[in-house]
């Protein structure tokens, strides 16, 4: 593993001009743009519902939180082999069968890209519960007097949420957004386990970590280009995190 010649920034330029690497960056940006707000909204919604309910509150909390304890690999395999298998006995196709719809090979088709449905639902199931708990903790710290004052002023429903709950959750929201973003950028487990077959991976839906895994650790063993790609990726995540922190903190000052 002794380097034979100094290539300067050659490996970085190679990676940046590699269309497969660039398309992997697009893939993961698209994935992040979709999954971050979706998880945010769903877990906030779940937290509000669970916080309001008066019956079986701890039951609902546990039920939504439980998937967090499940391994990404295990969930991926269940999603791939039993829920979204391409045959009639798969759960999704079984349901379609009741309405007389033909079986859909979810993971085999590239067009339309049904595999996104599989990947996104798996991730939502796995992570919504965790962020719900974070929001729940935030909601419980909001002083009830604020709500009482709002009620006296005649505010209810959406207005209470918009002007009291949401602003009071700013600290929690910032943390959740940051965690979600980092999580999205770390996308590997469910992609790899759902889409790879025998060490090969289709040329689409390939986030950078999956692509780098095949470049650097695959039989190619191209550590130089792999490391260059990893550094580029780290820089992107750092920049996005800093920018995001700035934006949300600026909002703080305005208050």
């Amino acid at each position, binding site marked *: 593993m002794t380097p034979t010649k100094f290539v300067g920034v050659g490996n970085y330029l190679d990676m940046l001009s590699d269309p497969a690497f660039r398309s992997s960056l697009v893939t993961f940006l698209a994935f992040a743009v979709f999954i971050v707000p979706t998880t945010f909204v769903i877990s906030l919604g779940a937290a509000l519902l669970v916080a309001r309910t008066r019956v079986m509150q701890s039951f609902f909390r546990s039920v939504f939180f439980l998937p967090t304890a499940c391994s990404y690999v295990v969930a991926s395999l269940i999603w791939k082999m039993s829920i979204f298998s391409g045959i*009639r006995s798969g759960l999704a196709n079984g349901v379609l069968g009741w309405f007389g719809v033909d079986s*859909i090979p979810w*993971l085999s088709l*590239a067009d339309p890209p049904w595999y996104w449905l599989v990947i996104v639902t798996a991730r939502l199931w796995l992570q919504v519960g965790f962020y719900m708990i974070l929001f729940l903790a935030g909601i419980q710290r909001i002083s009830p007097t604020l709500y009482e004052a709002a009620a006296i002023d005649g505010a209810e429903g959406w207005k209470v949420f918009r002007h009291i709950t949401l602003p009071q959750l700013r600290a929690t929201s910032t943390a959740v957004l940051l965690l979600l973003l980092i999580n999205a950028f770390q996308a590997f487990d469910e992609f790899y386990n759902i889409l790879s*077959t*025998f*060490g090969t991976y289709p040329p689409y839906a390939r986030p950078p970590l999956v692509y780098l895994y095949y470049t650097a650790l695959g039989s190619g063993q191209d550590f130089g280009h792999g490391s260059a790609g990893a550094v580029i990726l780290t820089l992107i995540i750092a920049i996005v995190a800093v920018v995001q922190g700035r934006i949300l903190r600026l909002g703080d000052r305005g208050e």
Partner: protein
Amino acid sequence: MSDKQIGREIGQALGANLTRRSLFALGGAAAVTGALAACGSNTGREPAATGGGASGGSGVTLNQWYHQYGEAGTQQAVEKYAAAYKDATVKVSWKPGDYDQSTAASLLTDAGPDVFEYGNGPTIDMIKGGQVVDLTDLIGDTKSDFNPSILERMTYQGKTYAVPQVVDMQLLVYRKSMLDKAGIQPPQTIDELIAAAKKLTQGNVKGLFLGNDGGAGLMGGPMLWSAGLDYLTKDNQFGFDDPRAATALGKLREMWDAKVLLLGAPKDWFDASALTSGLTAMQFTGLWTFPDIKKGLGDDFGVLPWPALDSSGKASVPVGAYGSCVSAKSKDVEAAKKFVKWLWIDQTQDQLDFATSYGFHIPSRTSLISQASTLKSGQAADAAKLATDVGHAQSPILWTPKCATAFGDAMNRIVKEGADPAGEIAKVKAVADPELKRVLA
């Protein structure tokens, strides 16, 4: 199809019971790790044994690595063979997980094995990097007894770098009763195959199963051979820049469009369950599934090679083998070579036992095939004959992982997205030409 895949195909493919076994194997690995940690060595390599310490007498300790085979008893078998070796102490390591990658990486370090198996022999980069030792003289005059296309796959510039252990193959398996009912003869050309698949597709039963990706990963090579072409020409140039290749690869898309391919089966092509549970009438799969097929279908199945495109093409079956290699970083290369010769060339009874007692494979020495009771009759005998007659090593040694990735991506786009085969082949050529230049330099 990339080289490393064969390994997975052979081992992982045996897969139905893998889960429980891999748990055992992981437990075993943990125990081994514990033992090593207790030795106070972080390199994974035992301190060189001296004098009377080792049981092997001569004092040499060899580390031998295997990937984790799926069949019960395999690990005990290789440990038994190793224990019987008198001239050195052989420590067998059973490696679950990503064997090819971790082995390739360990060869760069001092913690690697002395003797290790690798799918279809070492890669061209290992050979050119001087990481593996020339084993030509071990094979000597037994050369003619090995499956020729596999031995050639492990040979570079006249030197052989691995000794084939057992041969595995893939082939087309069909349900006799389903074909009879539909009044179809076993297909002999690709067009007959497509016609048959169309006729056999009824309700929830599909005509043909080539893997959940519609054959994109599996059928590239067989399709080229079917057109009478290959990955590379005889003089190691790009081999399928040819309109016939575009036609052949386009046939897979034709099957996809006709909706006769089974897609999204819970277990992929390496498992017999799609065929035995009646999801498909024909399936391209491995020889290792025969015990399961027999259990599920009795005698209701027949075997075929992947058919020729037309009269100027050729039928074929992909064959592959794990090859036993010697690391150039071994502390005692001569002792390691001696052990490889002893086990994989001289001990023919052990080789026969390894090939036939646990899973379902073909011995790599042709002279042993007639002694294998499992291959004497029926479909298994037909299959063994196909492997010898039309067997085709999965991909040439110069077809590097980079080429394989480019080809795999192209196949995906052709089959799944309906991309123009000729254009995709040109893209593969653009990657393969500089790669070939690099490895031939």
